């Protein structure tokens, strides 16, 4: 008998003595293998994927609610709950037919009226949904399995809108649930997807549990991202929220959890050394780092100042601050669209390439008339990505002679302060940092950050007629070539007007124990096809 066996034996005897033999029975090996314990990127604090559009909510919701279409790994929308669709020759009437046998978690069938209510709620919150709503004549149920969407003008990106994975996704809920005001939370979580949400076991901030839905009817095709047959190979998925990365790493090494969605880069080397753990890139679409300048107020209301910052900024500095020296984890990004996707372009990106030009930056600043007024740089310190970028930016601005008012705060404060349109000295801001999921930047569809609609645009409120013209050109494009041409012009215009400053493209890892298999790379954790041995 070795030391460890002896100690475990003593612990076992101690356990029996302490509890009088009354402790709960341990899970059998089979039961353990049917339960997947997963550490999500963040706490699941609410569970309405239309009301709250955080990625973590979307990721959990994808287990519980199904969609009419799903984006696959080739970035194409594929039928999911829909059996067939027809579009009229003039492109104005779309008719969809649901697959037979679809059921909600309360046993009720999924009917067209449920879809109509769900799409109505979704379209009040989603950017593509709002576009659809703007051209909608009517959205009606024809019969229990058929519904019709009649439009005033053609909308070629209909299937992408219904199948995209950017938040909010067009999840299908029962009519009575979907009739909830889109700006209020749904009262119950009756899903249409492969897993049921165990509300009674939900401890927000600590645990969320999902149980296999026996009556779910998966498609026959192979699963690919949000498309295909969502075959669940485990009976139960426990989301274990572990806020401290070192603790999450230790829990994975100790076998207390099976899969950690987002290990921080610093801890990856120790995880890679563990023979029981696999580590790989989580999502090939990665992330785009960014900082946004306030186009409403000096000094960034002058495009010369914004260009001065672009001319001086080193994306390598930002990326090394974010992911360290692992050059496989990042690449420069002289543009706004996700690398290695069909619409990726570097058109007009010369200002972000090559040796950084501090002299040119200073010259542009001088031409703008900048006279040393403070630049309020609001930086969330509780988010490693924003903190690292903020530190680099503060140094950059000082190098080109700008007067930095560095406001170190938390993400909650940045979230409210960035909405202030008042001048920086009166509670407003000059710049803030964030990042965008690469999956949201593969095209202009859900890419709020690139829009130039002024007062209605995303925080920073850039105005760019050229950008808006090309966004609309992309929506109207009839084929990939036209889409590519529009996005090239869009990229060039966005850089010329400096809609925002891209700090580079970076990847992140995911890690799991070797007794887990079937984990697919993608923009969110896909649980279908994932299995576990004891």
């Amino acid at each position: 008998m070795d030391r460890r066996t002896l100690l475990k034996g003593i612990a076992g005897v101690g356990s029996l003595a302490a509890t009088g033999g009354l402790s709960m029975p341990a899970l059998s090996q089979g039961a353990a293998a049917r339960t997947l314990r997963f550490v999500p990127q963040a706490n699941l604090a609410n569970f309405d994927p239309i009301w709250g559009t955080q990625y973590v909510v979307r990721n959990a919701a994808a287990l519980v609610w199904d969609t009419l279409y799903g984006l696959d790994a080739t970035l194409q929308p594929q039928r999911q709950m829909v059996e067939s669709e027809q579009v009229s020759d003039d492109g104005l009437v779309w008719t969809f037919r649901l697959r037979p046998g679809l059921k909600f978690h309360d046993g009720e069938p999924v009917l067209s009226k449920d879809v109509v209510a769900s799409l109505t709620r979704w379209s009040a919150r989603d950017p593509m949904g709002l576009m659809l709503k703007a051209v909608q004549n009517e959205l009606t149920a024809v019969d229990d399995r058929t519904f019709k969407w009649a439009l005033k003008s053609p909308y070629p990106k209909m299937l992408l809108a219904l199948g995209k994975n950017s938040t909010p996704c067009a999840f299908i809920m029962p009519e009575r649930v979907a009739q909830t005001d889109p700006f209020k939370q749904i009262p119950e979580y009756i899903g249409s997807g492969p897993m049921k949400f165990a509300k009674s076991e939900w401890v927000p901030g600590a645990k969320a549990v999902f149980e296999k839905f026996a009556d779910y009817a998966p498609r026959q095709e192979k699963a690919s991202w949000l498309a295909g047959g969502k075959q669940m190979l485990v009976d139960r998925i426990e989301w274990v929220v572990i806020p401290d990365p070192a603790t999450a790493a230790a829990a994975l090494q100790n076998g207390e959890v099976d899969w950690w969605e987002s290990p921080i880069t610093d801890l990856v080397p120790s995880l890679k050394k563990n023979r029981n753990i696999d580590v790989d890139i989580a999502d090939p679409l990665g992330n785009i780092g960014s900082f946004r300048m306030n186009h409403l107020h000096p000094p960034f209301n002058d495009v010369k100042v914004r260009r001065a910052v672009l001319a001086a900024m080193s994306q390598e500095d930002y990326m090394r601050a974010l992911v360290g020296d692992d050059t496989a984890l990042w690449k420069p990004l002289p543009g706004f669209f996700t690398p290695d996707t069909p619409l990726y372009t570097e058109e007009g990106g010369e200002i972000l390439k090559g040796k950084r030009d501090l002299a040119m930056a200073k010259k542009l600043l001088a031409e703008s008339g900048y006279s040393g007024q403070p630049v309020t740089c609001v930086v969330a310190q509780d988010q490693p990505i924003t903190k690292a970028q903020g530190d680099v930016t503060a140094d950059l601005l000082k190098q080109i002679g700008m007067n930095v008012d560095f406001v170190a705060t938390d993400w909650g404060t940045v979230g409210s302060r960035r909405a202030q349109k008042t001048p920086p000295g009166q509670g407003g801001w000059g710049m803030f940092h964030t990042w965008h999921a690469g999956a949201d930047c593969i095209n202009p569809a859900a890419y709020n950050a690139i829009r130039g609609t002024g007062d209605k645009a995303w925080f920073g409120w850039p105005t760019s007629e050229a950008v808006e013209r090309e966004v609309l050109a992309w929506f109207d494009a009839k084929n990939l070539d036209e889409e590519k041409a529009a996005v090239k012009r869009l990229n060039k215009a966005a850089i010329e007007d400096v809609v925002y400053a891209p700090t580079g493209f970076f990847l992140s890892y995911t890690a799991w124990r070797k007794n887990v298999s079937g984990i697919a790379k993608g923009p969110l954790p896909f649980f279908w096809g994932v299995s576990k041995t004891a």
Partner: protein
Amino acid sequence: MVSYILRRILSTLPVMGIVALFVFSLLYIAPGDPAAVIAGDQASPADVERIRQSLGLDRPFLVQFGTWLWHILHGDLGTSIFTNLPVSAMIAQRIEPTFSLMAITLVLTILVAVPLGVAAAWKAGSWVDRTIMAFAVFAFSLPVFVVGYVLAYVFALQFEWLPVQGYTPLTAGVWPWLKNLILPALALGSVYIALIARITRASMLEVLQQDYVRTARAKGLGQRNILFVHALKNAAVPIVTVIGIGIALLIGGAVVTESVFAIPGLGRLTIDAILRRDYPVIQGIVLLFSFLYVLVNLMVDVTYTLVDPRIRY
């Protein structure tokens, strides 16, 4: 005594009222916006504003405070902005882990610190005293999270004796419950063991120099009897005071410990609520903690009468 306890309990009401007003005002003027957190990073400013309106966060301060106070007076702590669950239910979910952690820590602290302090005083100036005091200085100097990481590394990762994180309810068995709490309690307790050991030593040293201790020795009483029956009881008042303060401080320490060991207790609920600006949850927790502080102080005062018959209320 009973009327004294009742008076003290009644006196908590104005204290909690003042705390409530103070916390509500503080949150009102603090920067941050739960609507922005709910809406997500990609939401438009218009969406954020609509959510703010639906939550009633755009209403004047007095209206918001009045509504909240009215609900409190009816025993309703409100509903979480984020989870849509009653605050009382969220607190109820989290009380057991925190109270379990505090109870184990307290028991551990008293069982270890008091004998250590007594031994140090008994052997004052010897290597025993110096070793115990060196340990006390060391333990007092180490942040809780550092102790936590070291314990987790040694006892969970290296020896695989105990889990790194989580909590198992007591209903699942004593050992499953206890094994999740041993490392957190050791980490959290290290500072308090050091503090109480030092106070016990100082208090005992003073008592051991009293005439009645010399008399006890002269009449031939055993050392154990002198230390634990005669001396310790008379040294107990300052020790009880520090233990009482320690209980109050444990609430703060639990915030860090629960984060390091991923224990789903009130400490983590507090941090999560603050970061998200979940105002009703923050207010509910602060009210609960203020009540606990008052209660602990009352218990300390009552305990004085048990260890020192001269004290009467």
